[in-house]
């Protein structure tokens, strides 16, 4: 399913960066403002879906040479790992902590272990969504022939 829509392709080239950056912003903002791992991951996936609509599978695959199943599994493992890590600090499973730290460039910054968990959520959502979409897309390209 090779698309030759020039307008779509041109707009997509520009838009994808905006969408992907927005996804990262949403993820980072989640702690204090609307956003978070689930939304961030989903928006990221939506950006790649747009790429898939505008370009063919091969091109997009070349841009993301990842096995998304592993990404999803890695996300789940990361989330689980943050939960288990808290046991080693003598706390209960999945208890989080936070604190403010003075970092160079950022100044006073609040860091929370919950964000690590959220990274896991984002990766799991992103990986699963993309894995499904790529699978179906691949299926279509084979179906056509």
């Amino acid at each position, binding site marked *: 399913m090779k698309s030759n829509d020039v307008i779509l392709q041109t707009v997509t080239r520009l838009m994808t960066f905006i969408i992907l950056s927005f996804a990262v912003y*949403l993820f980072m903002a*989640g*702690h*204090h*403002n*609307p*956003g*978070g*791992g*689930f*939304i961030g991951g*989903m*928006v990221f*996936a*939506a950006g790649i*879906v747009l790429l898939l*609509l505008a370009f063919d599978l091969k091109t997009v695959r070349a841009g993301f040479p990842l096995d998304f*199943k592993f990404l*999803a*599994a890695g*996300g*789940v493992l990361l*989330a*689980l790992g943050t*939960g288990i890590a808290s046991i080693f600090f003598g706390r*209960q499973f*999945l208890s*989080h902590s*936070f*604190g403010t730290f003075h970092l160079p460039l950022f100044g006073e910054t*609040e860091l*929370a272990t*919950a*964000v690590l*968990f*959220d990274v*896991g*959520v984002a990766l*799991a*959502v992103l*990986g*699963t*969504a993309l*894995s*499904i*979409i790529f*699978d*179906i*897309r*691949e*299926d*279509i390209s*084979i*179906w056509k022939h």
Partner: protein
Amino acid sequence: MSWLHLLILSPFIYTILIPFLYKSFRRIHTGWFVLPLPLILFACLIKQVKIVAKGSVLSYVARWIPSLGIDFVVYLDGLSLMFGLIITGVGALVVLYSVFYLAKEREALHNFYVYLLLFMGAMLGLVFAENVLVLYLFWELTSISSFLLIAFWYQRKSSCYGAQKAFMITVAGGLAMLAGVLLLANITGTFSIQEMISQFSLIRNNPTFIAAMLLLLLGAFTKSAQFPFHIWLPDAMEAPTPISAYLHSATMVKAGIYLIARFTPIFGGSMLWFWLVTGVGLLTLFWASLVAIRQVDLKAMLAYSTVGQLGLIICLLGIGSAAFYYGTGVTEPLYTTAILAAIFHLVNHSTFKGCLFMVVGIIDHEAGTRDIRRLGGLLNIMPVTFTLAVIGGFAMAGLPPFNGFLSKEMFFTGVLNASQFGIFHLETWGKLIPVVAWIASIFTFVYCLIFVTRPFLGKHHPQKLEKITREAHLGMLISPALLASLVILFFFFPNDLAKYILYPTMAAILPGFTAIDSGLGPIRAWHGWTPELFMTLGVVTAGLVVYFAFRKWPRIIRLPSRFTWNALYDGILEKTEELSGRVTGSYMTGRLRDYLIYIFVGFIILTAGTMVINGSFAFDLTTNSPVLFYEFVLFFVVIGAAVLVLRGRTRLASVVALGVVGYLIAGFYVILRAPDLALTQIVVETVTTVLFLLCLYFLPRWNEEKPEGFRRFDFVIALGVGLTVTSLALAASGNNLFDSISWFYEQAYELAGAKNIVNAILVDFRGFDTMFEILVLCIGGLGVHTLIKLYLEGRKTK
């Protein structure tokens, strides 16, 4: 977390490394990397022997689920220490043996050692667990790892059959045991075994005492392959021989014995427990030794002999349980000898049976068969292996100078004592126990003799074997040789073993027991012309007669194959599958419409039913906020779009209309000031609409369906769902059945440092939910992947 917790968890942690070690160092056998772990664990436990021998008990607590009273408590006393030493000690020898048994070029070693370590950790957890639920968890984990190990050569059909059978029977027993311990926990109000033991009189007077006992015994008997659940063990012999030596003779099958020993202080002293444990053990011993002499496969013979020896130990524990007839347990030698014999024989069995299994492994490895009809004359070819077989075999037969002789004599003492107890109608029926035990011992002697003589003596027939037989590699001989030297060592120094291992174990079973004033004399090989000695002499004489006559016997004991326990198991399995197939087939019609009907009808019944029962139809609209103009607009547009979904002329139109409904719902969220929800809804709607459009590709051509007229049934369901949801929404604000919990979440900034409450709930307060949600999502993704990939591969092969 204490060192003992780490000891239990270390095999699990180590499993993570195994696949990487296997991949990175293909030229080194993975077993070499595994070997240090059981050695270190063994050394750690050996250090505790002296402390425990002095009578101290170690216990450590790690909080696990404190809200449910489930803590990961570990408890180190004589009993668990003895098991721990066997698990790690035999484990180390088995790993060493497997290095030479499994070729690194051919076998999936990473799987093998991961399963093996999984088992080792589970078994350690089982014996050190003090909490019954933790015990159950590890109990089932041993079943699972045993399943994986039996099916290690999963290409063979018989391996899969054996694995499934072992799994079915032991897990079914495990579930019964779970019910049993839950009953106990219900009576005593605690999950701690030691606290249960301290409340034993409360348990004995409870009406569910018998039920709890039967359920618990079911678990123990299935795990330890007692009659009639013994059928899984011979089929489990499809596992690689190191596994048979480890799981199916030295450790896992003894878990049932551990359970019985552990719970003897609670149940001991009741007549039913005495007769069930003693009777089943004795029956098993008798039956298994009778069946064992007919086997032609060496490993099957050992499997039945293991079943029999386990029966012997369980029978002794049953006899010893009479000590609890008078309260917390008397410590007179009349009763306690049986318990000492049980423990002693358990240790001995681990040594000589482990050795024998390894000998069979060597024969199998070098000669390519285990069939005694094809083997013979190996004495000249494998002199070392023959020596080991003689040591192990004669120890099992109960001959001096091997440790089996001592424990066998004590076994006879134990069964002879039983008729002198004067309780439980033993004065009449008790006479039967020594007789049955003696006859079973004759057959035990016979199969030991067959095991030692048939493969090694007689004529060698190289033409019957597939390869040229040689003596085994030195590395393969080390482990059985070490075990064989223990067999002899324990014969000459039984009292040192007793002082450090056996008496502390007895103290763990019998609360009042101390080694000093136990009244038990030192264990002696020669104790005069006692009845026990005459029994042994009788066994040898009768055994030799049976052995030489046996060759001429026709196969006298053979049940028609329809009436065996195996046939019963197969029949039950087949019938259950058939029944479940029929039941499932009756409602899984493959039509989406039917499934939707189930879902909607179920929804109406559950939701509306609950509302009717609670009388929730009182609608209180006073606290509702007024409906704004925008909301009216959105409302009508949503309804319009929903109608369009149904009436759309093309699929594309319907999909787009569905998307419109979704986006408009997001609009509601915006108006109601829920930006997180709105964002999520918009993104999810976008992605699903695109997915939906992609999937349109696969649907068959759209056929204009002729309207089938008015479907009354569907209309009623649709109306019901609509009414239920509407009344639910209206009733929601009018029925405050519970106090609000939202105040807790309002502290998000103080508790989680997050100003966004929604996200704080997702990742922190309800983190557990989120974790499972992403797990489910991930599994769903894998499901889609598998479906599509399987379909594509199917197309390619066409």
